[in-house]
């Protein structure tokens, strides 16, 4: 944990690049070991970690709250889906760019009225936005495919990659892993850009506004503009995450973006650790493997997964974890390491003082 922090916290861009690259390569290596099912879950986790990172930037750095990031995610997702259906053959990098830009534009549209608000009013406004997205997608059938959604198959595993696999189910294994690797690489790029933002004058401007908006204005910060930039960046990351999310699933439909998704995103962000790169990674990991763990838990305890209790198990567990995190690890799982070190240090200090006397 410490070495990771020390690399990423450097101010030089090359050092950040090295840190992000190291984690990305490590994760790519892990995808070679994991079974295909776990690879698919990891791909979903990588996509969600991009969205969490964008939310983490908004909440942790600029001090604003948003319950609308699932909406921004849906915008990026539908932009990707509609583009893929009509122009499936364009390079993927263009699709990602498009989803990011359209996500950013939707963020701008929401930000202009939102930056006048704060606290619960801002939460309400953004919640209204994410609540509106699904019905729009359901009813605007000619473009969005309505309830059934859109299907596309843009991700084709290249031949050289297929060649790496042999034996039974070679194609399935290769496809699952190619999807995961692609999602991890896109996430790596996104994390690199966010690491840059964290350590730039833009990142500092966000923290100034968060800590003391009066003093921030006095040192030359345009408050509405800075808050708008925070929203637009957050929405751009959500758009990109949404794009990856639907590309790996090869389908986009309204049920993927329920109102509760925004709450889940916030929960994952808090569990991982607000405002840090590693927190978003941890949030993504929890997302990737929680469904699996919970179904294991259900079968272990003999709870019927379709019963009222079993179906809501994720909400129950996330809720309890959230409360525990708030109480005992306010900086999330990413902050636990630092907290433990601090605890050990202070215990040692107390011990040395009491033995010295």
């Amino acid at each position, binding site marked *: 944990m410490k070495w990771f922090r020390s690399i990423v916290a450097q101010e030089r861009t090359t050092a950040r690049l090295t840190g992000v690259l190291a984690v990305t390569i490590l994760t790519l290596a892990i995808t070679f070991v994991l079974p295909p099912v776990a690879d698919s879950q990891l791909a979903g986790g990588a996509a969600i970690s991009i969205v969490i990172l964008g939310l983490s930037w908004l909440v942790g750095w600029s001090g604003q709250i948003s319950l609308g990031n699932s909406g921004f995610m849906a915008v990026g997702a539908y932009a990707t889906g509609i583009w893929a259906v009509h122009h499936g053959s364009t390079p993927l990098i263009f699709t990602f760019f498009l989803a990011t830009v359209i996500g950013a534009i939707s963020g701008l549209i929401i930000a202009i009225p939102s930056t006048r608000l704060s606290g619960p009013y801002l939460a309400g406004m953004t919640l209204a936005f994410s609540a509106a997205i699904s019905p729009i997608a359901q009813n605007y059938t000619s473009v969005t495919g309505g309830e059934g959604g859109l299907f596309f198959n843009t991700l084709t595993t290249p031949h050289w990659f297929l060649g790496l696999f042999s034996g039974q189910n070679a194609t399935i294994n290769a496809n699952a892993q190619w999807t995961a690797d692609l999602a991890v690489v896109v996430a790596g790029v996104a994390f690199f850009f966010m*690491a840059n*933002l964290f*350590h*730039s*004058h833009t990142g*500092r401007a966000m923290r*100034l506004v968060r800590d003391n908006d009066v003093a*921030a204005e*006095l*040192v030359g910060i345009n408050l509405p503009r800075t808050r708008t930039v925070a929203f637009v960046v957050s929405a751009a990351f959500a758009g990109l995450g949404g794009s990856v999310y639907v590309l790996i699933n090869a389908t986009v439909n309204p049920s993927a973006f329920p109102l509760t998704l925004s709450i889940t995103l916030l929960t994952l962000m808090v569990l991982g650790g607000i405002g840090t790169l590693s927190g978003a990674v941890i949030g993504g990991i929890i997302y990737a493997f929680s469904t699996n763990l919970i179904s294991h838990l259900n079968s272990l305890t003999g709870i019927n997964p379709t019963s009222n209790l079993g179906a809501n198990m994720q909400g129950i567990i996330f809720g309890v974890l959230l409360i525990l995190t708030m109480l005992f690890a306010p900086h999330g799982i990413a902050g636990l390491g630092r907290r433990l070190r601090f605890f050990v240090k202070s215990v040692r200090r107390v011990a040395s003082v009491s033995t010295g006397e």
Partner: protein
Amino acid sequence: MSGEPIVEATVELEDVTVRFGGLLALDEVSFDVQPMEIVGLIGPNGAGKTTAFNVICGFQKADSGTVRFPALGHNALTTSQLCAAGVARTLQGVGLFTNMSVLENVMAGAQGHVGRGFASSLFGFPAGFRHELKLRDDAMAQLERLGIAKFASALPYSIPYGISKKVSIARALMGRPSLLMLDEPASGLDENELQELAELIVQLRESMSVLLVEHNMDFVMPLVHRLVVLNFGKVIATGAPATISTDPEVLAAYLGVDS
């Protein structure tokens, strides 16, 4: 103003009036601060000193009258533009950024001068890194100048009050201001710290104008070139400290001497 020398004032208030509902906070207030001049703004509590500050730095809109910055070549600036134009202000009660180190707090003072775009941040261009390094050196130099360099990595809540006041001044100086506005810089400081602060302000005067709100008369009197005395939102006297201290109206209104 006819017959005055041609030197342009750093800041100039003309007939500024501010009303809060029925309360007349400022009543046709006019005064100016000349380049390289130290001006003290004094008056009893509720006289309108802080409101005058707020009008100058754009926090409060004047109901009538004008604020001009002739020497800076700018007028009608918003608060966030002032920093780049050369006006810096400290806040009553310090107003540091709570979750940032002392060094970062001081670096933040030059935020209005960054002049770099979003792309530079996003891609992490090397020029941005060099700029940050330079900013850090500048901030360190300011801390050394004020003798508080050893607190650079401390967080604001962990340092003594006197030090945090100096940090807020260091932050204001990072904007390389032409006009430095200090809101009660002496409150809560001990004798030594007052002495140091006075020496600092005299030093600063060589490169900028200073406008300060202060209650501590022993501190203000030997320091300033001119005093502006406010009472109930009106300027009741303007002049050199020696003349002000014998002005009967001022004595009655402010210095607590019975007639």
